[in-house]
């Protein structure tokens, strides 16, 4: 089957089997390997991308289901060679060690911040229910997300 979608602002299409997962389409057909496959059982969140603006686990979606949709992956976050505030904050606050969970963490957090620009620490931790990190114990991840939220609020205010 032929699927077409907009990925990171670019129109793409490809020939897939109905059973091809979105994460397989992204990684194997499009070469966008920033979206990781961790547990492959919908639990770890390493494969989180945005589909039509909402975060979803790309290992639990068929590529054919998102035919015609708009998809954003970790590769689509940085604009004009400048890191997204979440990427910058993960860098500055050491929000990763091995980095495997990081793309999913950042894509999940980006969905949180578009819904709730000023979350509490508790709300950040609750939101990360579907993202597992086995290195850092979440402390610096939460710190990074709160810092990014603050910097994004500042940017939004400056733009007014």
């Amino acid at each position, binding site marked *: 089957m032929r699927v077409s979608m907009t990925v990171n602002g670019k129109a793409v299409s490809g020939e897939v089997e109905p059973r091809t997962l979105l994460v397989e389409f992204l990684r194997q057909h499009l070469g966008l390997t920033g979206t990781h496959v961790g547990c492959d059982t919908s*639990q770890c969140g390493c494969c989180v991308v945005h589909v039509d603006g909402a975060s979803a686990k790309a290992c639990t979606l068929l590529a054919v*289901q998102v035919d015609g949709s708009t998809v954003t992956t970790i590769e689509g976050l940085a604009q004009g060679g400048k890191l997204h505030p979440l990427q910058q904050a993960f860098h500055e606050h050491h929000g990763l060690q091995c980095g495997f969970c990081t793309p999913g963490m950042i894509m999940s957090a980006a*969905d949180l911040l578009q819904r709730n620009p000023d979350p509490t620490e508790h709300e950040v931790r609750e939101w990360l229910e579907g993202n597992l990190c086995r290195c850092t114990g979440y402390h610096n991840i939460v710190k990074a997300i709160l810092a990014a939220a603050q910097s994004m609020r500042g940017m939004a205010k400056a733009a007014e």
Partner: protein
Amino acid sequence: MYAFDYHRPASLAEAAQLLAGNPDAKLLAGGQTYIPTLKQRLAKPAAVIDLGRIAELRGIREEAGGVTIGATTPHAEVANSPIVKRVIPALAALAEGIGDPQVRNRGTIGGSIANNDPAADYPAAVVGLGATVRTSKGRAIAADDFFTGMFETALAPDEIVTAVHFPKPEKAAYAKFPNPASRYAIVGVFVAKTAGGVRVAVTGASPCVFRATALEQALAASWSAAAIDGVTIDPSNLNSDIHAQADYRAHLIKVMAKRAIEAAG
């Protein structure tokens, strides 16, 4: 995953026709249970019929003082709906507690109740609120008749859930003791004071959601957490597994019921 054919009907009529013509086809809504099932090769459908693009199956509206939720409405939409939050806040809160944010963005109410997982949250709300399940065959199935056993419902093989109608309760709340990893209910209790009397629905504890009639009787006599102190929950039909023994689940039913009653006010 085994290979399958894929159909993406644009209308309910088309979906019903495809399903009737393909006895080995399965319906796909949000896929948050079904895709993992396919990946583990626990199912081998000849065809998958994707309900995701049928506009008439999705959405939330007020109806007859209550709320009607289209079958393919995702949990996140129910959790954030101003209508649901105003008319039945307990239902919005239940939806907010399902799985994780990504599961809530894709998983649907119709998919959840048609699957009837013994530990799912929605069956407790459907039974607890005395909701009605509407189907592609024009049936309106009462909650008490819909859930018939573990992963079993009153749906015919070629029947599709189209919407669920929830009447507005006087008071309602849901309390669950979640599995810390999956967020599925080890025990979840939905209590409601409705026009038709007190209803207490329990999920997670046994092979299928059920009404705790002893708790209902005690609460009908007096709507307070203390009213159920003297009630004994029989553990003999409850689940025992690595997460909890039957007698512990029996204990949790009362604890969750009390929390729900207190939350309902």
